[in-house]
């Protein structure tokens, strides 16, 4: 149990909301009493000692007031539930499944199939016990188990039969891989004696967990494929003759084919009895099953090879808390970044949380020529990331953890990000915003949201009108959303893009729109949303790239859409094709300055450099590493799609050895991949025109926005940005 200070926490049902619409807030407090809530418009979320300071303006809304504080729990762990209890109360039955356990013997029971309730000590279950032994239990009786523990990451065919009238239990496991010096087949038989409680009450049938009161616990870690339930208790000989998925004369109660309806949360019963189930907390679908033979890597082409679902004890989709208050967004409220501030006085503690959301303009119009496109897909990808412990070889110094890092690592029930691995070491493919997300709050580390408020702060300081729109808005509305604007500006790190988002931005630039790419490592990873599951993103770390983990071969295609995930470059759409530059290096211990190139003196670029001296270093200051070029950086490359008429206006190249060249461009490893020796490690500021009067300007650096406020917003980074924003927002042809 964590000894860190208690926290009041919350989240919303939507990320983006328009005037006149409602947004619900869900709050949980560790202490009873009252909390106060109010809404503020966020100007700057940088609360560090060196920055422009935290700035937010309170807004009078219907939310203002006091609310009853209560605890709302989070239940992690995925499973499937089949709500036809009576069907599984058979007096005798046989259970059959293919399983690929990943944490056998982790000290916990891990359920494969059954309707056991641990609180009532009723029902039955086929499961792995705390030592990784295949076991069967019914009612309160001790289990029958196979003596040989299962091996992790091996496919097993497991079967069990049970006759409630006699208490007879037969168990069998067959490992598909046969090794010398180890039997692949094991069985056990025994009697539980009279077990009237086994079928005493009708209970929901679960796959990968069992009930304990109102909760589901004993989550399975690993894959389950083709589970079936037969009526009648087969003997050991008959169990031995059962082949996975093969038809038998035995009557079926249910047989689930996990390769059906792959893009949904439904598990389909193909027995003809329609005992379909529902997946809870998003276990990973589109996973290689026991019959995968490497002949196909796309589940859509051979769905039968992808009959497995990978369950985890730390999966989490939706906390499903009850609503505590609802904001009715006032008509006429200015578009922008907002947050609900929650404050509770409890004993001698003051508990607070700041829950961000985004107010877009009215849905039928823009209210400014400029839109700030908040990269919420990227925020989602990083949500509650545990990555802080894995960066020291990238930063060049020892790990430094902050309070949020500690809270997240000590409270894993808040769920994981697509930068993390599950408790069994497998990569996290889904990240949801329907939970408190501690690392995407105003304040704290200058990364994503807080770093992007350097942009809102600068826009406010320069009195430049802007609308705020989000990635979810863009995904759902496409070019219709963007074409309301003359100019669209990105955040500092718009890394994750769906096909719909990328198509929309591309169309925008081709139809005369002007795009300011005010960041780096953008448009890099391919992700997907699913319309029927709001607030969750899917990603696979396929093939190559600067990966936090590596997808298993054959698991590169997303379950939500079937698309190949991984790098956009590997789908033939490198970022250079869209914005002129693409990710080339990262390092997090310093940033540097740009120097003008001859291209910057071209008449086409004159408007960009008005007020900038010929030999002036651009951005030799800033809040992120002390320069405008740094953290993550991009470069132009004609071979990757940089347009031939692109002007490389300025280049930064003085990077430290802790900057590392991206691995997807390396044919083989070698010694020249660091900032002090690798020619590809440079940051290119670029400009190019697009058809129909459009244009793209790219700073190619995450650190850029952190330099805008230097010297009270009077500096050359600010000047260049203002020159471009004002010119791009002006409809006069370029």
């Amino acid at each position, binding site marked *: *149990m*964590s*000894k860190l200070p208690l926290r009041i926490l919350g989240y919303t049902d939507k990320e983006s909301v328009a005037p006149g619409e409602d947004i619900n807030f869900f709050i949980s407090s560790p202490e009873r009493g009252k909390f106060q809530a109010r809404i503020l418009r966020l100007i700057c979320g940088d609360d*560090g*000692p060196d920055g422009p300071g935290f700035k937010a303006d309170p807004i009078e809304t219907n939310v203002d007031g006091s609310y009853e504080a209560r605890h709302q729990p989070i239940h992690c762990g995925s499973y499937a539930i089949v709500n036809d209890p009576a069907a599984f109360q058979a007096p005798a039955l046989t259970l059959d499944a293919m399983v690929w356990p990943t944490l056998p013997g982790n000290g916990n029971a891990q359920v494969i199939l059954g309707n056991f309730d641990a609180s009532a000590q009723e029902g039955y279950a086929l499961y792995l016990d705390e030592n990784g032994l295949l076991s069967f239990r019914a009612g309160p009786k001790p289990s029958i188990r196979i003596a040989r523990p299962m091996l992790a990451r091996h496919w097993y065919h497991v079967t069990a039969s049970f006759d409630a009238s006699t208490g007879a239990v037969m168990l069998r496991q067959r490992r598909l891989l046969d090794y010398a010096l180890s039997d692949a087949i094991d069985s056990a038989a025994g009697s539980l004696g009279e077990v009237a409680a086994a079928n005493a009450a009708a209970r929901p049938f679960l796959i990968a967990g069992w009930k304990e009161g109102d909760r589901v616990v004993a989550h399975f870690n690993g894959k389950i494929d083709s589970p079936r339930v037969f009526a009648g208790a087969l003997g050991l000989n008959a169990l031995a003759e059962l082949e996975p998925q093969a038809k038998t004369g035995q009557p079926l109660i249910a047989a689930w084919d996990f390769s059906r309806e792959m893009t949904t949360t439904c598990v389909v019963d193909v027995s003809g009895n329609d005992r379909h189930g529902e997946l809870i907390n998003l276990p990973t679908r589109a996973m290689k099953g026991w019959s995968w033979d490497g002949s196909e890597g796309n589940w859509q082409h051979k769905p039968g090879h992808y009959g497995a679902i990978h369950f985890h004890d*730390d999966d989490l989709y939706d906390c499903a808390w009850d609503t505590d208050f609802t904001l009715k967004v006032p008509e006429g409220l200015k578009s922008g970044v907002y947050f609900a501030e929650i404050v509770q006085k409890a004993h001698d503690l003051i508990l607070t949380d700041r829950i961000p959301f985004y107010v877009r303009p009215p849905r039928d119009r823009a209210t400014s020529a400029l839109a700030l496109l908040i990269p919420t897909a990227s925020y989602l990808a990083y949500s509650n990331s*545990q990555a802080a*412990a*894995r960066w*020291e*070889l990238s930063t*060049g*110094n*020892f*790990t*430094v*953890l*902050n*309070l949020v890092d*500690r809270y997240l*690592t*000590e*409270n*894993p029930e808040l769920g994981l990000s697509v930068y993390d691995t599950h*408790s069994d070491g497998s990569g996290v493919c889904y990240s949801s915003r329907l939970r408190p997300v501690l690392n995407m709050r105003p304040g704290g580390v200058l990364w994503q949201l807080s770093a992007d408020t350097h942009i809102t702060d600068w826009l406010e300081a320069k009195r430049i009108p802007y609308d705020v729109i989000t990635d979810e808005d863009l995904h759902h509305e496409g070019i219709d959303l963007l074409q309301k604007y003359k100019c669209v500006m990105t955040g500092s790190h718009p890394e994750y893009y769906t096909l719909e988002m990328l198509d929309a931005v591309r169309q925008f630039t081709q139809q005369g729109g002007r795009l300011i790419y005010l960041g780096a490592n953008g448009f890099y990873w391919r992700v997907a949303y699913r319309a029927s599951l709001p607030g969750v993103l899917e990603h696979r770390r396929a093939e190559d790239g600067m990966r936090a983990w590596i997808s298993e071969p054959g698991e590169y295609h997303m379950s939500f859409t079937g698309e190949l995930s991984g790098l956009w470059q590997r789908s033939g759409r490198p970022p250079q094709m869209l914005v002129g530059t693409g990710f080339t290096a990262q390092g997090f*211990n*310093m940033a540097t300055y740009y120097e003008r190139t001859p291209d910057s003196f071209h008449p086409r670029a004159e408007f960009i450099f008005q007020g900038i001296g010929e030999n002036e270093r651009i951005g030799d200051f800033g809040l992120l590493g002390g320069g405008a070029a740094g953290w993550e950086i991009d470069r132009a490359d004609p071979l990757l799609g940089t347009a031939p008429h692109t002007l490389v206006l300025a280049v930064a190249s003085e990077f*430290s*050895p*802790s900057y590392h060249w991206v691995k997807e461009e390396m044919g083989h490893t070698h010694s020249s991949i660091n900032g*002090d020796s690798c020619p590809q490690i440079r940051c290119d500021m670029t400009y190019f025109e697009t058809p129909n009067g459009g244009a793209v300007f790219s700073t190619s650096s995450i650190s850029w926005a952190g330099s805008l406020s230097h010297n009270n917003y009077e500096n050359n980074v600010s000047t260049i940005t203002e020159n471009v924003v004002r010119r791009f927002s002006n409809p006069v042809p370029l």
Partner: protein
Amino acid sequence: MLRVDKGLAHLAQEYKSDPLNVFPRPDVQVLLRRLMVADARGHTVVVCLEPGKAWSLGRHGACLGDELELEGEIFDTLEAALWACFRVRWRALTGAECPVE
């Protein structure tokens, strides 16, 4: 692979003189890489107690959910905390005390 022992005391001294140097000499970089880990779970790390003001050392839990064990000493500069972390990592790697105090 670089053998870390008391013969590298001069490199330890160089790190101590400026733990936040982003352009350390190549042999200092190699020493640092030997002391660093790809995943700090289960290892000693620096913990920021109050931004810009107070740091400590702590042992990161080996598994998700494990509590981070804070050590008692509080440092008033990040540099001091990094140097203390260096010495702990040296001991963890070599089994011997870092020859530089």
